[in-house]
């Protein structure tokens, strides 16, 4: 009986329109749009690029040339240098080919820039640090000439390049948040198929429920088969969605893809159980319940910052307990902490919380739908 019910629940679920649209097509379409819209933003905005600069040397400074040569040969150089005379350099600056002109006169650097920004600041910092260190070396030379090579090498080393300090093993791409939020939203859309589980098995909510209730198959078996089939279908959709993002759109979810899949599957199951519980409450029509459920999901998403980015931080400050019990917040947190923390302690807490919530909502659903006789149909 159970397997028979499960088989047909899976078959009907696979062909359900809500399943195709909201759980498969929606994440694929929206993630593709995200990729088109934000795909290169991280690289162009967030990743460091060498600052183009013109260098005009009037003093034949070997120290500066040595530092710049060494810098350009590094893996991630601070500057992309063009040596030029004053006129050429000014033309390059006015044409926007360089961000600034570094003049070297009497072993001191001065800077001319055309605007104000991060790149100009970096050039200014470089010049200030160079000047400061040349002063230190000059002073060292006057006291202990033998120490000049060692002091010089040590001081100039840091000027050569920029180095990345990673806070986590995950991908720090800020725009991955959009994909994580999308996965969380699809997980919560699973509530719609959870809702149909409740409605299709209750005699007072649907003709189908009434017919099932008249059959000799115990309601608990029928309900369990239906709910498990929805868990399986939602897990399938989540895996398809994450796989599409990772392998087709080439979204970098970091090196803990297995845990991303685990989060996606458990969050999907949690979404289904929320729908099951909400669908089991009261005797409203399917449309009414769908309206209520959509409202609940949207509220949870709003509070978790899926719509307004700062909302989660505001809630964390004013009423942190809400973030701990809001399923949408727990789902997004499980993804975020994979990126922020190297250890899986907080991730484990989020996963256990999701499992607990799934169990709680499923039990609520079962208790409310276990009723065998209805006051009215």
């Amino acid at each position, binding site marked *: *009986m159970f397997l028979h*019910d499960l088989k047909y629940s899976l078959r009907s679920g696979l062909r359900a329109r809500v399943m195709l649209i909201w759980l498969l097509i929606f994440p694929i379409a929206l993630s593709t749009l995200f990729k088109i819209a934000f795909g290169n933003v991280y690289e162009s905005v967030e990743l460091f690029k060498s600052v183009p600069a013109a260098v005009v040397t009037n003093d034949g400074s070997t120290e500066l040339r040595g530092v710049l040569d060494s810098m350009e040969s590094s893996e991630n150089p601070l500057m992309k240098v063009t040596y030029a005379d004053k006129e050429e350099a000014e033309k390059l600056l006015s044409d926007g080919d360089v961000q600034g002109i570094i003049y070297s006169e009497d072993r001191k650097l001065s800077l001319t820039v055309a605007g104000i920004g991060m790149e100009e600041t970096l050039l200014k910092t470089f010049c200030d640090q160079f000047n400061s260190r040349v002063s230190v070396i000059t002073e060292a030379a006057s006291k202990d000439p033998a120490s000049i090579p060692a002091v010089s090498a040590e001081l100039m080393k840091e000027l050569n390049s920029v180095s990345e300090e990673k806070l986590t093993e995950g991908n720090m791409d800020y725009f991955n948040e959009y994909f994580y939020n999308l996965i969380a939203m699809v997980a919560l859309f699973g509530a719609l198929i959870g809702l149909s589980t409740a409605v299709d098995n209750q005699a007072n909510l649907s003709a189908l429920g009434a*017919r099932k209730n008249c059959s000799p198959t115990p309601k608990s078996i029928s309900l369990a088969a239906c709910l498990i089939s929805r868990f399986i279908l939602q897990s399938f959709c989540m895996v398809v969605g994450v796989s599409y993002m990772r392998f087709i759109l080439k979204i970098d979810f970091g090196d803990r893809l297995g845990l991303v899949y685990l989060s996606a599957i458990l969050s999907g199951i949690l979404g289904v159980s929320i729908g099951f519980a909400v669908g089991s409450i009261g005797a409203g029509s399917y449309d009414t319940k769908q309206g209520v459920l959509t409202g609940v999901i949207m509220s949870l998403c709003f509070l978790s910052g899926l719509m307004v980015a700062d909302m989660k931080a505001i809630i964390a400050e004013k009423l942190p307990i809400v973030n701990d019990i809001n399923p949408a917040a727990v789902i997004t947190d499980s993804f975020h902490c994979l990126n922020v923390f190297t250890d899986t302690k907080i991730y484990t807490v989020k996963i256990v919380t999701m499992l607990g919530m799934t169990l709680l909502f499923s039990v609520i659903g079962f208790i409310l739908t276990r009723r065998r006789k*209805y*006051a009215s*149909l």
Partner: protein
Amino acid sequence: MANTVVKIDNLVKRYKELIALDHLSLEIKEGEVFGLLGPNGSGKTTTINCLLSLLAYDKGTIEIFGKPMTPTSYDIKREIGIIMQNVAVFNELTVMDNIDYFCGLYITDKAKRKQYVEEAIRFVGLEDFTKFYPRKLSGGLLRRLNIACGIAHKPKLIILDEPTVAVDPQSRNKILEGIEQLNRDGATIIYTSHYMEEVEQICTRIAIMDKGHKVAEGSKEELKKMIKNTETISIEVAEPSAEVNAEVAALPHVYKNEYTDGKLHVYCSGGKHNLIRVLDVLQKHDMHIGRVYSELPTLNDVFLEITGKALRDKED
């Protein structure tokens, strides 16, 4: 004597202030086609839902196959087929899958189930539509699918709750013929409807319900004998004079006569040759006679006389 299949005793069901079933008692014998006839809201569907243990009731007992019916009476449920008023099928499953699914809730043996499903498809004439999804079926075909889902497991007791609502005449006839066939094959049938013609056509015994009461019960002949009217004569004539009316009223067995819509209606209670006697009176007064009708009482007349209102609303 046939066994009692369903026994409802003193059933009371209230919806807050409204009494939906008021001390209803019924006994349905094996092999009967039992009709529950009544207008919308008379309590037919409530009776069925209580019978199936879907609906909680306030008082009374229900026994099916001699055992108390409860929500966990799975052995009893196994022998019942239910065809709901609303079509109850999966829109995402084909005709074949739908029937197989519902049959599988009753029959675990796969080979037996396959055979039953094929027989059910043939029975309702959906052989050409097995791969169709319900939304592609017409209203009549959808009703037939609904019936197939309810009877595929070959139940001993089949309950049909208004199965012909919104069905075209051709499909309706097919459904009614099918029900008679199921009965001939040995099933006991409970058939609810507010279409008196259907109930008259297929039911061997009928209970007429109104406002949660059983107002009459018996075979159609027995029911018709319960009322005064045995024949209604309608004759197209010019409006008769008071003298003619008085003469008609004085005829034996005539208990009422009236002139409406260009016809003289004469209501008789018993007796023979009533029509001839009425025509004699009209001829005597040299009245031109148009079309003449002589109608035996219908269940609507029974209902009208017992409750004082028509069985079916005009829009029905």
